[in-house]
């Protein structure tokens, strides 16, 4: 019996059965990657118009931020932050009813309202904010308001999804206890569910605000407000040092936002 087992383990044929398919899979993946690289990089790229190494470095250095340009873009930078703030706030407000609908434990009708809530979430998370911005710019014209609406539409999905998950993870017993006092469903929700869900909700809101700063920075490139417009204008005019200043400013802003939001969120979890 033991000899049979030992023979089974050391059987070279058995080893091959396990390893060969794995190597074949790796091989296939490698071939696919090489094929795609050939398609896009070797043949799909216009190598004749590609900058030479010298040109690349020259252009790279020309991007060095022209710090004198920063005061001019201080306004747009602030505008970017404002857009992120209001976009997140709007998303936060809208996510409350949507998460109520999209949570299996609170949705009034599993057949109608639940799929509706989920559909909102999926659409919001699948559509890039630029697309929303384009839609709103076409509808409302240029300016930061389309940007705010675009950010709101994009963030609603994440906020609603995470809040719905938090609602579903709630302590059902507490909800039942409130129910047994004769309270109606909405009262149960506000008294038993909301206090449990609120800290997660707030943490996620701050997280989204941080991400939205990044998103807001590019919305200007389609005319929806913020520093993006200035960036693309400077690029078009070949003022690469000014464009570099825009990028530099955005990077600083984003890093700052991340540091601050992380601090606040750790404080939230602790307290």
């Amino acid at each position, binding site marked *: 019996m033991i000899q049979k087992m030992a023979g089974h383990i050391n059987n070279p044929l058995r080893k091959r059965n396990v390893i060969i398919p794995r190597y074949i899979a790796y091989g296939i993946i490698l071939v696919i990657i090489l094929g795609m690289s050939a398609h896009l990089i070797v043949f799909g790229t216009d190598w004749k118009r590609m900058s030479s190494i010298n040109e690349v470095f020259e252009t790279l250095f020309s991007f060095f931020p022209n710090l004198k340009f920063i005061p001019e873009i201080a306004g747009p930078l602030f505008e970017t932050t404002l857009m992120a703030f209001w976009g997140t706030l709007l998303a936060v407000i809208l996510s409350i009813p949507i998460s109520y609908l999209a949570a299996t434990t609170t949705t009034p009708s599993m057949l109608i309202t639940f799929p509706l809530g989920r559909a909102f979430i999926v659409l919001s998370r699948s559509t890039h904010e630029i697309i929303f911005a384009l839609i709103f710019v076409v509808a409302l014209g240029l300016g930061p308001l389309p940007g705010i609406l675009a950010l709101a539409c994009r963030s609603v999905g994440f906020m609603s999804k995470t809040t719905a998950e938090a609602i579903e993870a709630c*302590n059902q*017993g*507490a909800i*039942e*206890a*409130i*129910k*047994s*006092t*004769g*309270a*109606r469903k*909405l*009262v*149960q929700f*506000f*008294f*038993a569910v909301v*206090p*449990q869900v*609120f*800290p997660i909700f707030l943490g996620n809101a701050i997280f989204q605000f941080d991400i939205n700063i990044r998103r807001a920075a590019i919305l200007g490139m389609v005319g929806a407000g913020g520093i993006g417009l200035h960036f693309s204008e400077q690029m078009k005019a070949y003022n690469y040092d000014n464009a570099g200043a825009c990028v530099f400013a955005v990077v600083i802003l984003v890093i700052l936002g991340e540091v601050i939001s992380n601090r606040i969120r750790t404080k939230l979890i602790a307290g």
Partner: protein
Amino acid sequence: MVLLKISNLKKSFQGNEIALRDVSLTIENQEVIALLGLSGSGKSTLLRCINRLTEPDSGSIKLENLEITNLNKRELRKVRAKMGMIFQEFNLVNRLTVLENVLSGTLGVTSLWRAVTRAFPPNDIFRALELCERVGISSQVEKRADQLSGGQRQRVGIARALMQNPTLLLVDEPTSSLDPKIGREVMTLMCEVARERDIPLLFSVHDISLAKDFSQRIIGLKEGEKIFDKKTSSLDDKSLEQIYKIESGNSLLTSESVN
């Protein structure tokens, strides 16, 4: 006056588990009644059917001559407000303070606006504070519910149920999550307040000694059927064996169940 009359209550869950087979009982005056039985005998189901947290399949439940089983949502809520329920796992809202948890007993009659803004009328706040004193948690009133010990949490649960000025107390295995000594303190408190307010208290339990020591009447359930309904003093060994006998013929009496 007949306070609670249950007739021919039936309930089965999916998978053909019959939880309650034709259970009937009547409660007429203030007394402490123990629902005794093994796990799965239908004790919790019976309690939860009374305030329709679980919907019975058929049968009638009358609270003060009002038929409960066919009430619509609104009327049901009004009736629920008259029945206070105390839970095995306490079921407090952990992030709220003790006082807010006690005040939540009034949510059956509070308007939505009041509930959202937590703007409770001063009378209710005073009543809640008095109840906190009565159950012995005055010093913890400002603390968050999850900072309390098990026994303290159950006291909050009792205060919350009393906040409703109930005509009936439904108690689901109140001591199963507590140490035996604390459990007895809590049981004593519950029986005292029930007596003070002249309201019946119906509690489910699987520990015989608790049933014998605290109740005036015992209702024994076995596999969804009521097989005993008499004064506690008349609970003899034969009836006990009936309640605790399992199908294979083995009795649990000889093991740890009688302590």
